């Protein structure tokens, strides 16, 4: 691998990766902070009002949604998170071939003893590493928030302790005392990792599709248009499939079906933990359902297949002269 080429690719990517990482780190921290602002009973009251009508849209049960890990990971499906990751992935993916062609720099680059595959591999590796960095930044923001934020809860009134006897009598008439406890007592940041990994897989998938569009074209704006179009169609398909139960079959035609950070975090909290398994247990306890790793594998598989196709097309195609 060529050191100069690595330096160039990293130099082109670092501003964007740093910006996206900072944004998601701050977002995740603020999200945990807002979780700490609203105590569980208030949140339950808010959700309870809508649950009857909209529970079919939730991928997790009410209990999982109301739990602190459930509330923290809810931020991972926020449009800010999904769109920031997709923005990064489309920006980088579309740049791989069409970007260099559009700027006219590919001609000079490939006039050197560098294979086309080599150039694409370095660019794609930097993109995937950047995707990992952004997903990690999101998780780090969550971890930082969990480390410093506290949450208000109602402590039961102190019980009476009988002298000389190992007995305590609960105080049924006293009033519950509000107290603040660290949120880290309610949620472990480690349990949120499957959600961050799911975001990373989504990023690789979108970057692969954008790279494929880029490898076929000579104009970057058109590659961005194609990749954004695919993303939008997939997103809308998932939205329709979730909101209209008769059209739930549409889930089979969108890669967003495999983006379910809430489900994977809830699976991680199951007993036994299923956040990192290929199969998951069904209602009867049988390991017959696809697990978190299968969903992530699907996203990564689509992304890597798109990268493979992009490489085949790029290696075989004629390169147009700089305009």
């Amino acid at each position, binding site marked *: 691998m*060529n*050191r*100069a*080429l690595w*330096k*160039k690719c990293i*130099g*082109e990517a670092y501003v964007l990766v740093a910006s996206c990482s900072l944004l998601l780190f701050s977002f995740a921290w603020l999200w945990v902070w807002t979780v700490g602002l609203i105590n569980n009973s208030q949140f339950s009251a808010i959700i309870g009002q809508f649950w009857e009508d909209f529970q079919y849209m939730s991928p997790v049960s009410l209990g999982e949604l109301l739990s602190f890990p459930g509330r923290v990971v809810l931020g991972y499906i926020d449009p800010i998170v999904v769109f920031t990751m997709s923005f990064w992935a489309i920006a980088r993916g579309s740049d791989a071939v069409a970007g260099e062609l559009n*700027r*006219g*720099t590919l*001609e*000079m*680059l*490939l*006039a*050197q*003893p*560098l*294979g086309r595959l080599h150039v694409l591999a370095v660019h794609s590796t930097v993109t995937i590493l950047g995707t990992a960095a952004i997903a990690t930044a999101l998780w780090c923001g969550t971890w930082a928030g969990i480390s410093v934020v506290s949450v208000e809860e109602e402590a039961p009134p102190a019980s009476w302790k009988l002298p000389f006897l190992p007995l305590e009598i609960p105080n049924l008439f006293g009033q519950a005392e509000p107290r603040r406890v660290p949120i880290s007592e309610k949620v472990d940041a480690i349990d949120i990792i499957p959600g961050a990994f799911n975001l990373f897989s989504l990023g690789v998938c979108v970057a692969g599709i954008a790279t494929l569009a880029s490898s076929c074209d000579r104009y970057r704006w058109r590659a961005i248009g194609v990749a954004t179009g695919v993303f939008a169609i997939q997103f809308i398909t998932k939205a329709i499939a979730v909101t209209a139960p008769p059209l739930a079959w549409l889930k089979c035609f969108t890669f967003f079906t495999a983006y379910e950070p809430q489900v994977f975090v809830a699976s991680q909290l199951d007993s036994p933990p299923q956040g990192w398994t290929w199969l998951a247990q069904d209602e009867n306890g049988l390991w017959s359902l696809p697990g978190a790793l299968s969903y992530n594998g699907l996203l990564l598989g689509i992304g890597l297949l798109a990268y493979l196709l992009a490489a085949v097309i790029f290696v*075989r195609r*004629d*390169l147009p*002269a*700089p*305009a």
Partner: protein
Amino acid sequence: MIVETRALTKRYSATTALSNCTMQVRRGEVFGMLGPNGAGKTTLIRMLMGFLQPTSGSASIDGLDCTTQSLTIRQRVSYLPGEAKLFRRMRGRDVLNFFVEVRGDGNLQTGLAVASRLDLDLRRRVASMSTGMRQKLAISVVFANEAPLLILDEPTANLDPTVRGEVLAMVHEAREAGKTVILSSHVLPEMEDVCDRVAFLRRGEFVHLQEMAKLRCVHSLTANISGELPDLPRALVADIHLTRDANRLSLRADAVSPEFFTWLASARLSDVRMEPIGLRAVYDRFYHNAASGSAKAAS
């Protein structure tokens, strides 16, 4: 031969960019390619570089196939594109450094020396450079390595006359150093100055190959003549082509020898004008006639 093409053809659906091009470039020569826009010069060069796949035919450099062994070929070739675009956010020195590192066989000091010779400020970012400065930077990149074959697609475009002279001098020096240079240009005097042979392309077809050493011997002469013209010595008959219109004499001498001047001195000439025929005459033969033919057809 360092470069060979055999019936090389490139078609884009209805358009034929290059048709049945067969030619050879000798090791150590400066080989020029001439032709109007769209003649197929850049297509031919880009096929040699492996950027375009031939529709049919083949091309090789140093015995290596340009399609299947392009990577090895590019270790032996230094290429200047017609529109050299460089990384805009880098400074000039960083660009030089980048290409020297990428190639592995490059020499930064040589690149810096070339840049200095071309009076280029390497502290500026590419984005803030003029078109001519970017061209100078690209030329510095190309001359910063020791590749035995240089392919230069219009190297003097966008350059001022002084720098053009420097670039042509560098081409001369490359040939002196035993390198082969393939040069594409529209500037006929430059081609006359540096090339050993010039290929003429027209509408994707290779139409003529001109040995410059022979062309440099060909002269045209016009003069007023009074009295009879002495008979041409037998030795000159093959090389001298005469036309006389009343008192006006025109001739083309394919070779100039002492016998020719002796014969000329014996004629009673005045207002004599003699000049090398140059590439212009050859160019006009292939392109002016073709252009007027097209115009007539259109009218």
